[in-house]
């Protein structure tokens, strides 16, 4: 009787992970995106061991010459900066920062957005009014002036970059999840759950949340992608953390060096990384989107 009716938390988690793997893999672009993201994650985790050189040490080639502004070669796969730093090592270490910022702010922003959306949509009335006017206010908040003020007040720190990104990004997920919650709370099975005596919190988290989960994961992937882009632009404008290196920060260094017209490799490598990672995340989210919205499915 109980075969196929798995018990225990571990098997449940395993079952749902397999389910997500299946969702992403049934979609060709999602599959590509999944593997590209996986490669980036591996690079980020093992960055210090993968980097061939110290990113902040001037490089000298085998003949003892100062390796400034070298084009990509075997020794320096993506070239060097005007100060002779190895760009490949910088790129690998920057992957770590970028992914960390993307994951942390993507995760926290979806956490805030989902809870605000669920609570506002489920309770309605005054609670809804307050929470949604709050998101409206954030919609009126421009990102750059906001981060400029934060950095002027507290200095160039990674935490504040993450904080600024989170505060700007959660608003969209809150709105979308609120709308979906309102649609789902009117379904008959929610009334049935109420009649059964389920508490409000139980209804929100046990009955509504699983039904908005595909949408939630879609926006989680979006939020990570947007965090990465936002971080890159903030760093490029010089609002990043000066002590850690990120892809946007590498572009900022290029800008400061004044070699934008000469060192094409310096420009190309971090840009390609940003584009590839963000595109892959969008592919993954696309796979979820088709689950959330079957009309997008072709044929």
């Amino acid at each position, binding site marked *: *009787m109980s075969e196929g009716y798995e018990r225990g938390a571990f098997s449940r988690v395993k079952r749902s992970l397999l389910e997500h793997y299946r969702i992403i893999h049934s979609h060709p672009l999602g599959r590509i995106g999944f593997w590209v993201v996986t490669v980036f994650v591996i690079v980020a985790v093992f960055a210090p061991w993968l980097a061939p050189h110290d990113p902040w040490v001037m490089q000298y080639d085998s003949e003892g010459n100062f390796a400034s502004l070298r084009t990509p070669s075997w020794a320096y796969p993506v070239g060097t900066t005007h100060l002779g730093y190895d760009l490949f090592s910088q790129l690998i270490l920057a992957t770590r920062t970028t992914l960390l910022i993307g994951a942390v702010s993507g995760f926290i922003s979806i956490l805030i957005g989902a809870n605000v959306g669920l609570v506002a949509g489920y309770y309605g009335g005054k609670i809804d009014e307050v929470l949604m006017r709050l998101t409206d206010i954030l919609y009126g908040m421009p990102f750059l002036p906001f981060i400029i003020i934060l950095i002027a007040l507290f200095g160039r720190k990674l935490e504040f970059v993450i904080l600024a990104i989170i505060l700007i990004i959660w608003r969209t997920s809150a709105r979308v999840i609120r709308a979906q919650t309102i649609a789902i709370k009117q379904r008959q099975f929610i009334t049935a759950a109420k009649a*059964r005596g389920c508490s409000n919190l139980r209804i929100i988290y046990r009955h509504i949340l*699983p039904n908005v989960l595909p949408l939630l994961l879609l926006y989680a992937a979006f939020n990570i992608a947007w965090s990465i882009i936002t971080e890159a632009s903030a760093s490029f404008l010089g609002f990043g953390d000066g002590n850690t290196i990120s892809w946007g920060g590498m572009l900022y260094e290029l800008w400061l060096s004044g070699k934008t017209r000469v060192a094409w490799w310096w420009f190309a490598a971090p840009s390609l990384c940003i584009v590839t990672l963000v595109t892959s995340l969008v592919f993954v989210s696309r796979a979820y989107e088709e689950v959330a919205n079957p009309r997008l499915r072709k044929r």
Partner: protein
Amino acid sequence: MTENVLLSVLNLSVGYSTQQGVVNAVSDVSFDVQKNEVFGIAGESGCGKSTLIRALLRLLSNNGASTAAAITYEGQDIQNLSDNAFRDTILWKRISLVPQSAMNSLNPVYRVGDQVIEAIRAHSRASRSEARERVEFLFDIVGLQPELMKNYPHEFSGGMRQRAMIAMSLALDPGLIIMDEPTTGLDVLVQERILRRVREIRAEISSSIILITHDIAVIAEMSDRIAVMYGGKIMESAAAIDLFESPYHPYTLGLKNAFPSIKAVNNELISIPGSPPALLGDEPGCLFQPRCPFSDSACVQVVPDRHYVSELHQVSCHRHADVLELRERAAQKSTWHY
């Protein structure tokens, strides 16, 4: 007789505040449900049947408010219980619900068995495996194979989902099960199977049932006693046989005309012209009066009192004394359509 009363409702009224004013969806409804009986509530759409149930179970939407002189369950006052106490002691343990369109009442993302287990575990200290055994037992009662527990709702047919909801309502052996339109949306064969199953369950357990439907055939077949609702009020209530054999209220007479009888073949069905009242504000007089062919000046001005024809047969009509004349005239089509 009173010690046999399971649920007693006295003067229950429900109002919905809307932009046009307060809609009195249910006004002054009183009824008793005896132990081990099926109490049918019949009425057309919008007459307040479902609102009545929602008020009883405290499931009204935010703009609805209910008042009652008294609501008791087994002699215990349940009207003044706090919401938490009501949820912990009454809801599902004593009074359970098979909701309207039970077909859509299962959460699509959980296995059917898990949802019944949730209902059991939310209200009792049963362990997961005890709850699962209970669900197997319940599934057996309603005629579902226990293996179906691990299926998702979309893998069920409409009738199976209905039966799963009935199983869920039986989960904690409640004294009273409220079935809101249990057969609506099912084809006649499945209807028959569900009703037969309900009858078998009644033979096995001793719960009372409140059966709510607009389907006169279903209610006539299933109920011991019937209340006919119109415009948020109970117009007439009586034992099922009495109601159909000797109806008093013109609305009941009209309903009887609009419903095919097995005895009289080729009998033309007569509809009741007009439509139900809007229930906005307090209108003087009898609510059925605008559609009633027998109304007189008293009907326009005065709300009719409850009149007891016998101990168990009550009717709210000014002209209950002229019932023989009314029955005769009501059988003719020209009385209703002229």
